[in-house]
Every structure is written in C-alpha cells, then in structure tokens.
C-alpha cells in the first residue's frame, strides 16, 4: 500500500459500506420464516415424489420373508436414515454444519453397518435367506435403489445450493449416504428377497453409488462461488 493512498482508506471504506447497503436494499432476501416455508415445501414435495415412486413401482412386497425379518431390517435402516438425516441436514448450532471428520465417519461407517444388519438378518432367519436370486435381479433391484435414492438426494441438496464454504463435497457425500439409507428402507419393504448377498449387492452397494453422486453434486451445487460482475 503506498503512502499516498492511505488517507483515502476511510473514504473508500465508507463508499464500500454505502455500496453494499444500497445493493442490500435493492435486492430483498428471504427472512428466516420465508426460508422455513420454502424448506418445508421442498421437503414435502421430495417426500411425496419419493413415496409416489415407491408405490408406483410396486410398493410393499414381503415375499416369503417373515414379518420379524422385515421389521428388523427396515427398523435398523430407518434408524440409520433418521440419524444420518439429523446429522447431515439438521441444525448443528453452527452455520457451517458438522465438522468434516464427523461427516466422513458417518459416511464411512453406515454402509458396513447396513451390510452387517443384512448378514445378521440372514443368520436369524436362515430359511428366508436361502432363496435363490438371479444375477439380473441384483442389477434390476440395484438400479431401482439408485433411482429411488435420486429424488431424496435432490430434495436434500437443492435447498442448500451455494451455502457450504467449507467442505461441499463431504456434505454432499453425507447427503448422498442419507438418501441411500432411505433407499435401503424402501428396498427392504419392496424387495421380496431375503438373501444376504442380494441385500448387500442390490440394497447396500447403491448407497455407495449415491454417496459418490452426492459428493460430485455437492461440489457442483453446494460450494460458495464468486459472483461474476
């Protein structure tokens, strides 16, 4: 900074203040109440679209699985989905969300936990787990899981556009895993197969695909960018 420019610093600061306040007055922004209404609307539309897709693709289908097995697998997946939703989308008391290590831990731990739940279910109810599943069924069920997870992923990502200045890809990955966990809940309700291998390949592996998708979309959509003049 040159000596000659120093005296103009307060004037420049005042000019900047006036410019910013004028711009703020010119472009109104949503208040907290407005924002909450928008979030509720997006969440309702996302949930409605997801449930419609679930019902439109066959809905509940227990097959030969006992009710206890369905309750066990759906229950664990539901708990995982609820915890992840709270962790990745809930209020953390900070404007910058949860810390990177916490989100990464949640992302890394969830898929193995869901796989262990599938293995436990096949151990507790061996008769239901013995059914033979064609490899084509793995692929179709997995594709359906990814498709069903895309809607909740978008519903979770869109309200947070341009709001993460710290770790947008990690937040996106956590949101992807959250959408994946909700997909596992639906998969255990709609898929008639109790085979452990099928549950891992067609229900749990798609959560990893949704996590990768979430990380990519998070980087694209969530990060704070310079506004071009």
């Amino acid at each position, binding site marked *: *900074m040159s000596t000659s*420019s120093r005296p103009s*610093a307060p004037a*420049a*600061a005042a000019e*900047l*203040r006036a*410019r*910013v*306040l004028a*711009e*703020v*007055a010119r*472009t109104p*922004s*949503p*208040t*907290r*109440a*407005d*924002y*909450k209404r*928008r979030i509720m609307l997006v969440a309702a539309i996302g949930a409605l679209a997801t449930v419609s897709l679930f019902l439109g693709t066959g809905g509940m289908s227990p097959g030969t699985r006992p009710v206890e097995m369905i309750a066990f697998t759906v229950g664990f997946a539901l708990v995982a989905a609820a915890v992840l939703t709270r962790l990745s989308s809930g*209020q953390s*008391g*900070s*404007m*910058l969300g949860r*810390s*990177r*290590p*916490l989100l990464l831990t949640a992302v890394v731990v969830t898929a193995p936990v869901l796989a262990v739940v599938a293995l436990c279910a096949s151990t507790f109810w061996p008769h239901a787990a013995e059914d033979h599943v064609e490899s084509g069924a793995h692929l179709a069920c997995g594709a359906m899981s990814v498709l069903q997870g895309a809607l909740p992923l978008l519903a979770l990502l869109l309200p947070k556009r*341009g*709001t993460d*200045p*710290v*770790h947008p890809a*990690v937040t996106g990955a956590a949101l992807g895993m959250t959408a994946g966990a909700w997909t596992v809940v639906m998969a255990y309700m709609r898929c008639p197969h109790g085979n452990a291998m099928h549950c891992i390949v067609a229900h749990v592996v798609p959560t990893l695909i949704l996590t990768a998708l979430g990380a990519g979309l998070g980087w694209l959509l969530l*990060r*704070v*960018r*310079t*506004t071009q003049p």
Partner: protein
Amino acid sequence: MFMLAVLDSSGKPPPSGLAALRDRTLAVTEERSRKADPASSALDAAMDRYARGDDSAFGAVYDGLAPRLQSFLLRYTHDRAKAEDVVQQTMLKIHRARGRFTLGGQVVPWAFAIARRLLIDHHRRGGREILAPTSDDTLTQLLAAVDAPADDVAIAKEVAEHLANELARLPENQRVAFELIKQDGLSVAEAAQVLGTTVAAVKLRAHRAYEALRVVLADLGTDTKRKGEP
C-alpha cells in the same frame, strides 16, 4: 435468555422434559458465548434480528464484520480493491442467506469461511496477484509509528522478517490456523468451524506453528548472543 428468566419469575411452571433441557442448554451456550466475546455476541444478536426480518440490523452486522474481513483479506491480496471486492461479495452472500441463520449460530466464523472460500475461488479464476501472506506492510507502518532507537527497530524488523518467512514456510493448514487465532482474533472453536475440522485438530495445528516460530526465535537469540560476543 432474558425472556426465559422473566417467564420463570412470573410464576408460570418451567418447561419440562426435552424442552427444558434444550432451553437450559441454549441458555448455558448463550451465557458462555456472551462471556467469551461480547462483541461477537452482539454481532450474533444483530444477525439474528436481521434473519427475523429487521432490515435495519444489517448496518450493525456490516460494521462488526467488514473491518475484520478486510484486514484478513488484505493480508492475502495486498490489494485494497480486491479485498473490498471480496468483502462486498461476502456481505451480499450473508444478506442472501440470512434466512438460514439459525438461533444460537455464530456469524463471525461463517463470514470468515465465506470470505476465505471466495478468495480461493477468485484465485482459481485467475486472480494471480493473490500472494502468500506476509506482514511487511503492517510491519513498516508499525515501525514508522514507533519512536524507538534505530538499532532496536532494525533488530525488531529482522526478527519479524524471520518470523514472517518461517510462517510462510509452514504447511498451509498450520499457517491458517495460527493466523485465524493470533491475527484475526478468532477463538479456537471459531477457527475450527472456519476450517471445517475439530477443535483438537486446530489446537494441534496452531501448536505446531507456535513451536516452529519458537525455534526460529531461539535460533535468533543464539545468533544475537554470538554477534554480541567479543
């Protein structure tokens, strides 16, 4: 919190269960925050008013944040126009996202994180004039203002140059943690939020930076003694 105290003293039954726990936690958090840094708490309160729809509160938010942000950005850009540009964009992003500001949230780490990200984004888009931070300008201004003997000024300048060089050599994560805490006046918890990591990680990074700078100071002390020997 004041509202809660009024309600309690008015004879109404206190909230029970989870609501009571939440209220107590919020009260303790607010109390700690207020004790820790009254200026930051006043800023958070102003931002909260702004988020609720009080448009006049933005002036207070701007006045509390802009000088600190500008000082932070000037250290990296060495260009007042560029720093002002990023300050303007940061304040406008805060304005546009005011609805997201949660009750009990902290505006200072949020603003620093946005400014830091915009600075990095600006650099990636071709703002090559952004340099590694040095304190030469500040040092020159400071030394000019100090009425000290010429020898002392020369030694102080040499020490400061060595420290600045060492700081520039540190890994980025250590340097940024050190600067946010020591030069921008953020608490360790606030710096952890800005960097998206844990408090323990920031403490470790800042400690390593302190240790590196302490070694430089020790070496300089030894050199000075040697120079002073006959």
